[in-house]
């Protein structure tokens, strides 16, 4: 299954790109598990996802929790807590 990942703010800066398409590996079922797997992909990913507690996620443009199943997501975004307004 191919999914588009999008990164914002310092997550984007640490990963070094604004988005990418990935194949979700078998065994990765939730958003939290996806973050753990991402952290293992290299130094920049470890820097970005090393502390998943401070990262928020959205599936197809709706906020989700780490335990949310990836399901049939086509776009998953990762970003720090919001600071707009």
């Amino acid at each position, binding site marked *: 299954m191919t999914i588009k990942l*999008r990164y*914002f*703010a*310092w997550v*984007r800066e640490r990963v070094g790109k604004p988005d990418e398409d990935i194949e979700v590996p078998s065994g990765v079922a939730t958003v939290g598990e996806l973050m753990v797997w991402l952290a293992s992909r290299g130094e920049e990913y470890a820097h970005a996802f090393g502390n998943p507690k401070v990262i*928020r996620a*959205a599936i197809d*443009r*709706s*906020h*989700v*929790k780490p335990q*949310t199943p990836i399901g049939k997501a086509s776009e998953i*975004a990762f*970003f*720090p*807590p*919001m*600071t*707009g*307004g």
Partner: protein
Amino acid sequence: MTTTFLVRIQREPFDAATEAGKLTRGRTDVGALVTFTGVCRGAEASEPIAALTLEHYPGMAEAEIERYVAEAIERWPLLGVTVIHRHGRIVPGEDIMMVATASSHRQAAFAAAEFLMDYLKTCAPFWKQVEKADGKIWVDAKTTDDVAAERWAVTAGRHAAE
């Protein structure tokens, strides 16, 4: 009761007064108009800043704000709601965003404006970066903003991260 509403995300400056004025023009059922304007300050955490840059998640930002507006309209008897939020580089003194709420009575207008602001601050996908003398840094989210947003969740809460 017809509620007019407008949500706009844009790079360009806006005129809060003109936008708020549109909510009352040509109608005589509005008794209360509350306008909140968020302004770029010249300092962040006591250090002077040259500017701030707002990054956002296009598509999600609009959708998310429209969800809060829909919920506000469901909760309070509103006659009009306007939310405008800028992205890109903004210098001190410039307006960052605005919320305007119109109702027959003031309590609804005040409550809806505060509700919208609390959710915007904590849930709308925008991120502020400030330019200080020693470089650019991302602004940290405030715990007080989360607490402010949580007070509305007692009866609804479906816009908290699910």
